């Protein structure tokens, strides 16, 4: 199955496999091509997700005002250009689903795990190129199903991205809980299969296919992050699959796993003995680790980029690895902090408060280590570096408010308000997105052999950075005023009239920020074809991917796979002329490898 992946070194890579358009660009088993496929699919889904957020932000700022954009895009859901309340909830729901799963899980982790794991550990390809291909095509299929669900007669799923039953289980409770929700569940089931195949592949590859000399303590932090992320995914995604399956049973086969004692639209339903709280447990058993599935790859990417562009070793390599492991472990035992007021036993709430606040410790270590890496560096302000610094900034801002939300007593009053929306968008949404952008700017030359335009990159970063804070910083305060999230309009509550202006400002920032992503899209697609040709190692980086030729080839390296003699962070090491020493350069006589 993985015949071409474990090609032996004496194999002749000069001879050409007969490659047709289909095997090269569509059903490719080459990890570099699959990475590009993930990236482009994720980008397209991202455009849909961001467009949705701009639409519902417009509704929040100018409630029930006719809008050409709505009329053009929403059709029957915006009679006369006024957005319907059902489609508002659907937009919120699908925005969340797309951004969390399709963009920041598949688009981020799928792209960079695939691209970097073989290249940075010195492998010819993934352990199983075939499974890798299947994994991508399942992801593609799930994206198609999700997009199709937008066109269902009664509307797409609209129960929030957390799809709590009974709302998501009963078509009479909400139009979107009919065929729209069925497609949502089918799409997610396929997505989970895709994610599991991918994760297993990543784990096996990192364990088995490291080149000679690449011990675990010499792995770049990117690989550590992808490796641990894959493990979290394998542990937690199946639980969401089981929740989805049980929900499908409740919806279609009359079981009562999550439903009990329901009277709706004048009739009593037969369900008895189930509990929606059970669903919440199952959902968040994935849902919380999912936050780290999204965030850890971004943190891994920034570790690499900050070290390279600071021309300094990453500070506290071992502490960084330990904190990734600690975060991974803790992330699986904190899910209950989403459920303090769900009706579960308050004592459980105490336990989850304790574990949740513990997770702040490894997070703080990471933040301080990043800052110390900058200290006395020689910072190369490439766009990737800017996005990495931006990530550290939003990670701190967003992470700190976690101290409030993780505290059960404080959560009572801000639970499900805009405070929560602001918190998780900064700490995981924007941070992970910055990580993704940083990765794209940094490894674009590796992916496409061409450079992105840096000035457009600067423009993209600075506008995005200002808009991200402009949108989400004031949002905390609206939340502290008690404004619940997922309200179609706030005009029924004069109490909140004094937040209306702030909502308009937030929407303005959102629109500007959204529109300026066009600069990135332009730069991205234009540079694929017309960008300046890249040199082999443009950022003067240490890791192995930059020892591979610019032109892609099966097996990554012509001839022998490079051997590794040192860790990935020998930047500005005394005793060397250059300010970087690639991992495949042997130690000179008498040189000591750093004990890390």
């Amino acid at each position, binding site marked *: 199955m993985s015949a071409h992946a474990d090609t032996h070194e004496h194999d002749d890579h000069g001879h050409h496999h007969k490659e047709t358009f289909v095997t090269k660009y569509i059903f490719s088993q080459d990890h570099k091509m699959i990475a590009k496929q993930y990236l482009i699919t994720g980008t397209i889904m991202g455009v849909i997700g961001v467009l949705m957020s701009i639409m519902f932000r417009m509704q929040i700022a100018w409630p029930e005002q006719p809008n*050409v954009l709505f009329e053009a895009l929403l059709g029957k859901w915006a009679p006369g250009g006024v957005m319907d309340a059902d489609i508002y909830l659907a937009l919120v729901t699908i925005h969340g689903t797309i951004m969390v799963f399709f963009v920041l899980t598949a688009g981020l982790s799928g792209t960079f795990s695939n691209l970097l794991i073989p290249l940075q550990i010195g492998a010819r390809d993934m352990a199983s190129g075939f499974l890798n291909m299947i994994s991508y095509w399942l992801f593609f299929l799930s994206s198609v199903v999700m997009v199709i669900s937008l066109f269902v007669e009664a509307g797409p799923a609209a129960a*929030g991205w957390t799809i709590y039953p009974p709302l998501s289980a*009963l078509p009479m*409770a909400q139009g979107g809980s009919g065929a729209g929700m069925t497609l949502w569940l089918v799409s997610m089931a396929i997505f989970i299969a895709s994610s599991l195949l991918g994760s297993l592949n990543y784990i096996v590859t990192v364990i088995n296919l490291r080149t000679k000399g690449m011990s675990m303590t010499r792995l770049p932090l990117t690989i550590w992050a992808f490796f641990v992320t894959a493990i979290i995914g394998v542990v937690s995604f199946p639980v969401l699959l089981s929740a989805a399956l049980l929900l499908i049973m409740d919806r279609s086969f009359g079981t009562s796993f999550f439903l009990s004692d329901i*009277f*709706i639209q004048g009739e*009593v339903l037969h369900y008895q003995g189930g*509990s*929606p*709280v059970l669903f919440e447990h199952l959902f968040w058993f994935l849902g919380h680790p999912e936050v780290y599935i999204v965030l850890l790859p971004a943190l891994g990417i920034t570790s690499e980029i900050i070290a390279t562009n*600071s*021309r*300094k070793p*990453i*500070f*506290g390599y071992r*502490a960084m690895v330990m904190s990734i492991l600690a975060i991974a472990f803790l992330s699986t035992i904190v899910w209950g902090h989403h459920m303090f*007021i*769900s*009706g579960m036993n308050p004592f459980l709430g*105490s336990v989850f408060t304790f574990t949740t606040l*513990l997770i*702040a*410790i490894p997070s703080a270590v990471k933040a301080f280590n990043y*800052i110390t890496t*900058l200290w006395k*560096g*020689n*910072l190369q302000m*490439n766009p990737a570096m800017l996005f990495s*610094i931006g990530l550290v900034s939003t990670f701190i*801002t967003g992470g700190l408010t976690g101290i*409030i939300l993780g*505290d*059960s*007593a*404080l959560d009572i*009053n801000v639970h*499900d308000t805009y405070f929560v929306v602001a918190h998780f968008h900064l700490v995981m949404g924007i941070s992970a997105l910055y990580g993704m952008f940083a990765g794209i700017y940094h490894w674009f030359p590796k992916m496409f052999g061409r*450079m992105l335009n*840096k000035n457009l990159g*600067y423009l993209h970063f600075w506008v995005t950075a200002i808009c991200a*804070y*402009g949108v989400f*910083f004031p949002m905390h305060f609206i939340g502290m*005023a*008690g404004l*619940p999230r*997922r*309200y179609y309009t706030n005009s*029924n509550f*004069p109490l909140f009239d004094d937040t209306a202006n702030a909502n308009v400002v937030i929407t303005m920032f959102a629109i500007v920020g959204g529109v300026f992503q*066009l600069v990135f899209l332009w730069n991205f697609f234009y540079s694929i074809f017309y960008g*300046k040709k890249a*040199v082999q190692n443009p950022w003067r980086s240490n890791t192995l991917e930059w020892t591979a030729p610019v032109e892609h080839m099966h097996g990554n390296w012509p001839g022998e796979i490079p051997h590794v003699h040192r860790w990935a962070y020998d*930047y*500005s*090491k*005394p005793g060397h002329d250059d*300010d970087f020493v690639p991992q495949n350069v042997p130690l000179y006589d008498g040189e000591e490898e750093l004990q890390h």
Partner: protein
Amino acid sequence: MTAFLTIIIVLFIAVAIWQMVKIFDLAQVGTSNDQVATDKDNRINGYLMMGFLIFIYAITIASFWYLGDQPLMSNAASEHGVQIDNLMIISMVIIFIVQTFTQFLLHYFAFKYKGEKGRKALFYADNNTLEAIWTFIPVIVLAGLIIYGLFTWTSIMNVDESDDPLVVELYAQQFNWKARYAGEDNVLGMANVRLIDNNRANILGLDESDPNGQDDVIVTELHLPVGRPVLFKMRSQDVLHSAYMPHFRAQMNCVPGMITQFGFTPTVTTAEMRKNPDIVEKVENINAIRAKNRAAIEAVGTQDVIYEFDYLLLCNKICGKSHYNMQMKIIVETQEEYDAWMKEQKTFKNSLTN
């Protein structure tokens, strides 16, 4: 026509971006590695980092200035609310100290150490003492917060049944709230949605044979006597809802198939709260805004233009189409006013139709 205009505008934006790209492109001639940051880029972006630090501080100050006077964050109207507010303020102070300090370091370093050709960075990979310091400081601070938080949480969630709380059921359905008082015996009658009989006006599904339920009182406006502990029992008949009473720092989900609970003691009557200077200011502010929107409000016609403060119960868990308008007024009043109001209400037994 508007659609046409929009298309034109979009076209203009596209052309503008195209032109921008052209300018950037023309400005660059030279080697193939010219998309890597130069000393000039480092300098410019280094200064912009300092600018961005100022922007973060500015937006923080602006948010506090314009949005920070949320009376919801002080003036709690319940006994335990004061504890929550204290914990909130302590947490906020810690957060803002850490935020100000770390953002400064991050952006200042980005500015201070901006790259120059020929300079070499310091090879500095590890320092166990430093790392121990910034592991243990968070440990100590968080330990304090955890302990304070847990004590607060436990004291809020453990309802002391011995001080005779007023038992009230909050009943949620798409898309309204009802409240059921336990009557003179202060014991709620048994109920289940299977017993709902709209023909007999048994809208909450009370067991008609349960003697405890006969004196129950079902209302659509919540009245609470000031100073007396209330124990809410939450029930939902269809989907998840959440009973959110922000002024009392109280919230609990309503879950079909189970009864959840939350207890608190209201300490400020509605009349007193309306005279609170913070609330007066907030209401004046809101009314100034509403005066400007008078025409729009009158066109809809469901609200008075002049807003008067009231406590509210809101639904805070997505529950369907009209989630955004699921509310109930809460009135906190003196015991005498409460008794007088209660006397006017019909008991369950008397409200049944045949």
